[in-house]
């Protein structure tokens, strides 16, 4: 190792140490508003690993991430300002200690949730592989993360797809206060690598030179296409888990003192050639000044404008759009070009995949097989296994990966087959994918398309029939799309594939084969624009997905009873087009919301609240809902039929509403 390399490592470790100690002091003085997890004692690991990374390589980190950010090149000013909650912070004040984003330098974020960073690093690796950039992705995580399913799923995916990814386990021996010796059946993390067919190394985490050597080899292997490496660094944090927390309920003062003596910085200084001593002193003085300046900068920086609190929930940029403007579906030519709902989505996906090489599809059976629901037929032969990637059954794993891939420049399409399976990955979607754009102040975009089948029918029973769309509708950052016909499906799918936001694209299984006229040309349907399926004057019915054709089928019958129904299909529930609904209710004075799913906190409740608020004086009757039963989906046909609204239920509700 050259003197320059030694001084560089020393310098980075010292930046981390002095910044952390200053942050600890600031925390004690109440200048930091939230949590503060310091990296003191573990500096060698981030420093050693990051010494091999370029700005284009990516780092995915944990709640103890200050050191990773600084080692990746974040100036102490930006880190401290972030913890001070200032507009000049690395996340512009939206994140704090556990959400440090600086994608410009490959710092892809720290996370308050244990586990996701490993999956996201797989995504970083997947993007690098797909785009052939030669970049590597690194996950830093603690010993607490290795007993989490994400560890297993990440290492397995990295292994089977030979991802250019480093898994750096910082085994500081306590998951908060739970000893690793208690929490793990095996004393070795590195030893687990063999179980995934990966190389694993156990090294002294306080020896920066050794870390640098092993990590250097791992980075080289990754860049050479030889896949991932697991490195377990045995280390110790010498400050409390979080500043201000008591430390000696689970470990002893003696143990902490013993580890303090093994300080990685002192160790490097002691081992360094004597001629570097003066240079090292000079570096220390320079860094003390740098940290003092950082604190001053942070303190003097302005807080973010309160008015900007909801900015960046959705992408500020877009991949271009040519939306259809009319809320009415155009008249079909004669003869119409009739294709099914699924064929319409395939047309959209196939077209966009050939136009945009950043798109890839992941899911179970979407490769050669072409998808359980024929969502990707023929695409594997056109685009190959990397763009049509069959997955192990690990929804959390590949959804987490998709998040990391989107963060690093590709556009994953996750095909869940049945949307029920989404729930296994719900933390990755709600906590990570939906929030990334916001937490990074719009500097990351998250074009993740999550698609799957929903809906009750054909005795699919309760694990193959859930919708949960209203759950997703409650998540800021997600777009939630639920088409009711092939025409809308194509236009909305194209919009989703070009949109820079994460989109939940839910396809009702009972209408997948329903055909209608679908133009061959490329067209997008804007999100948040309801479709007026049928115009009427007496009652407004808002229906979603399969409930749209169910209701439409009744309209002629009701017309004969002199009940003129205006049928609206919101098409997307997030964003929700309340303007069109309000406009319709202003005309009819009556509103019924028809939804297949249970009523509680549902779309009906949301629409009713909004219309009662903004359209109160237009109402000539109470707002009514038709919903499915508040029950899991049963199997037996008799039971199944009893939990979904039928045509008769809807007809009855409309008649009753007109009588109100």
């Amino acid at each position, binding site marked *: 190792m050259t003197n320059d390399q030694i001084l560089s490592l020393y310098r980075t470790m010292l930046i981390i140490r002095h910044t952390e100690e200053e942050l600890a002091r600031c925390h004690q003085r109440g200048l930091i508003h939230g949590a503060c997890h310091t990296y003191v004692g573990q500096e060698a690991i981030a420093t050693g690993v990051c010494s091999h990374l370029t700005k284009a390589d990516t780092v995915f980190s944990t709640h103890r991430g200050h050191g990773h950010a600084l080692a990746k090149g974040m100036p102490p000013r930006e880190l401290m300002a972030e913890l001070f909650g200032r507009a000049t912070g690395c996340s512009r004040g939206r994140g704090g200690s556990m959400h440090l984003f600086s994608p410009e330098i490959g710092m892809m974020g720290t996370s308050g949730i244990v586990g996701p960073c490993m999956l996201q690093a797989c995504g970083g690796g997947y993007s690098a592989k797909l785009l052939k950039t030669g970049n590597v992705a690194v996950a830093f995580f603690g010993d607490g993360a290795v007993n989490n399913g994400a560890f297993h799923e990440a290492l397995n995916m990295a292994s089977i797809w030979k991802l250019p990814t480093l898994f750096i386990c910082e085994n500081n021996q306590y998951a908060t206060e739970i000893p690793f010796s208690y929490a793990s059946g095996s004393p070795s993390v590195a030893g687990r690598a063999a179980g995934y067919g990966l190389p694993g190394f156990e090294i002294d985490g306080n020896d920066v030179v050794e870390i640098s050597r092993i990590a250097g080899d791992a980075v080289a292997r990754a860049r050479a296409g030889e896949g991932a490496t697991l490195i377990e660094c045995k280390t110790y944090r010498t400050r409390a888990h979080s500043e201000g927390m008591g430390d000696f309920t689970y470990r002893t003062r003696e143990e902490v003192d013993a580890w303090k003596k093994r300080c990685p910085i002192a160790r490097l200084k002691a081992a360094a050639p004597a001629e570097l001593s003066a240079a090292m002193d000079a570096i220390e003085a320079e860094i003390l000044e740098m940290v003092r300046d950082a604190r001053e900068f942070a303190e003097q920086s302005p807080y973010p404008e309160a008015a900007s609190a909801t900015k960046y929930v959705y992408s500020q940029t877009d991949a271009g759009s040519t939306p259809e403007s009319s809320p009415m579906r155009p008249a079909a030519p004669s003869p119409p070009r009739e294709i099914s709902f699924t064929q319409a989505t395939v047309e959209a996906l196939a077209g966009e995949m050939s136009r945009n090489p950043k798109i890839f599809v992941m899911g179970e059976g979407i490769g050669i097989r072409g998808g359980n629901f024929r969502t990707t037929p023929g695409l594997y032969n056109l685009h190959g296994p990397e763009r049509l990637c069959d997955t192990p059954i690990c929804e959390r794993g590949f959804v987490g990966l998709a998040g990391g891939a989107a963060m690093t420049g590709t556009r994953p399409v996750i095909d869940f087959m049945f949307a029920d399976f989404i729930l296994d990955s719900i933390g990755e979607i709600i906590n990570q994918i939906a929030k990334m754009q916001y937490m990074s102040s719009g500097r990351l975009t998250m074009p993740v398309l999550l698609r799957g089948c929903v809906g009750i029918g054909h005795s699919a029973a309760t694990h193959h029939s859930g919708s949960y769309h209203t759950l997703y509708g409650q998540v800021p950052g997600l777009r939630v799309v639920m088409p009711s016909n092939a025409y809308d499906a194509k236009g909305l799918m194209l919009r989703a594939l070009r949109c820079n936001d994460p989109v939940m694209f839910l396809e009702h299984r009972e209408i997948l084969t329903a055909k209608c006229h679908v133009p061959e040309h490329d067209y997008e349907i804007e999100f948040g624009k309801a479709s007026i399926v049928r115009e009427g004057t007496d009652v407004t019915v808002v229906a979603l997905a399969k409930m749209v054709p169910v209701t439409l089928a009744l309209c002629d019958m009701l017309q004969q009873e002199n009940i003129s129904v205006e049928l609206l299909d919101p098409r997307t529930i997030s964003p929700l087009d309340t303007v069109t609904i309000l406009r319709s209710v202003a005309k009819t004075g009556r509103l019924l919301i028809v939804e297949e799913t249970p009523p509680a906190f549902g779309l009906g409740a949301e629409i009713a609240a909004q219309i009662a608020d903004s359209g109160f004086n237009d109402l000539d009757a109470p707002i009514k809902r038709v919903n499915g039963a508040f029950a899991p989906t049963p199997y037996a046909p008799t039971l199944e039929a009893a939990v979904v609204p039928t045509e008769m239920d809807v007809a009855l509700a409309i008649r009753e509403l007109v*009588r109100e």
Partner: protein
Amino acid sequence: MSFEITIPRLGWSMEEGIFAGWLKKDGDVIRRGDALFELEGEKALQEVEALDDGVLRLMADGPQLGTVLKVGAVVGYLVADGAALAQTPSDSNVASNTIKPVEKAPATDINSMSSGGSPSVRRLARELGVDLNRVTGTGSRDRITDDDVRATARRESEQRPTINSALAAEIIATPRARRAAKTAGIELSSMQGTGRNGRIRERDVVSQSNAAAPSATWAGGQRISLSGRRRVIAERLADSHRQTVPVTLTSQVDATNLVSLRQQFKAAGETLIPAIHDIIAKLVAGCLRQELRLAGRWDGDAIVLPYDNEIHIGLAVDTPEGLIVPVLRNVVNETLLSLAAESSRIIRKSRAGRLSGAEMQGAVFTITNLGSFGIDTFTPVINLPETAILGLGAIRKLAVVASDDRIEVRPMMTLSLTFDHRAIDGAPAAKFLQSLVAAIENPAARLLMSE
């Protein structure tokens, strides 16, 4: 023990009244027969008397001056001394009749909603049109059972008019209807709702507004809201116009002897001189005994004839509040002088707006007089459910050809008899008028014959 104070039905067609204020205060000790409150009913402002003893308890959300109330609506309670109103409804078996439990509780009572019952109970409730919030559960943990729903449905079908009345005691209108009414300048209180439980909907406002189209398009001038009495008059006259087949016969009568009879009373030194309409009422009663069908009351599938000694005759009286018809009872049996005293009393009372409901009921025939306004003939409108009405014209001195072909000056009067051709044909009606003419031309003989 408590008693509900409800809006009484003051006339046979009365559905609602306008509350005109309490005559007693909350907490007053009330004896049976005490006047409790004033109500503007079908045709008059009237005092409503207590039917029971007790301490008056008024509801916080009770009626205000001018509130339109359905017959049967509860406006207060008479409770045993010391009892509080809060306990009253639960003490009472007829609590469901009160405005409050029906109106207010369902919307806010979360407990009663949570005890809603099983899906099958709900379905049953839906089928029977029962609001579960009105059902008291008797199952475990107060759950509502099928039987509870059925019992409520039975009870409510028996009490339907009362419950509907109670509901309508306050104006229930949709927001859209309120806005439409405001725009059209229409009072919601003047409207019947066609929605659930009488809820006023936009269409009700629109139809009302269309009916009042001239005022909607004619911007100027003062708007006078219809009083309860005006509305009752309007409805009753419209009903008569819709339901009857009116034919009016007119005939001139020589009033020489009639006028002379009044002179004779004066000459005899009577202080109370019978009015023309008193004498004619007495004569009409005599003629009606001969042709009772003209005194029949139309009753759907039957005509109900009065007993011939129970001929009550209504007198149409013009009052500042509108037309009112007090009733002269037992005209056949009463002497002319006592009739005159009674008619003078009820007419005075009518003009003071103090006529009781009973004093306006039971007429079998009505006499209306426009003669004092110089009118000769007109077409009176039958006062349902009566069969005929007699209009009296002015008495004028006219040149008439006497039986010996001489031209003489005689006081003449025209009678206008409108009869319902559904109930009686032209010939018997004409015969009646003919006999009446004869009676009026020789009143003394007729009167003495009937004494």
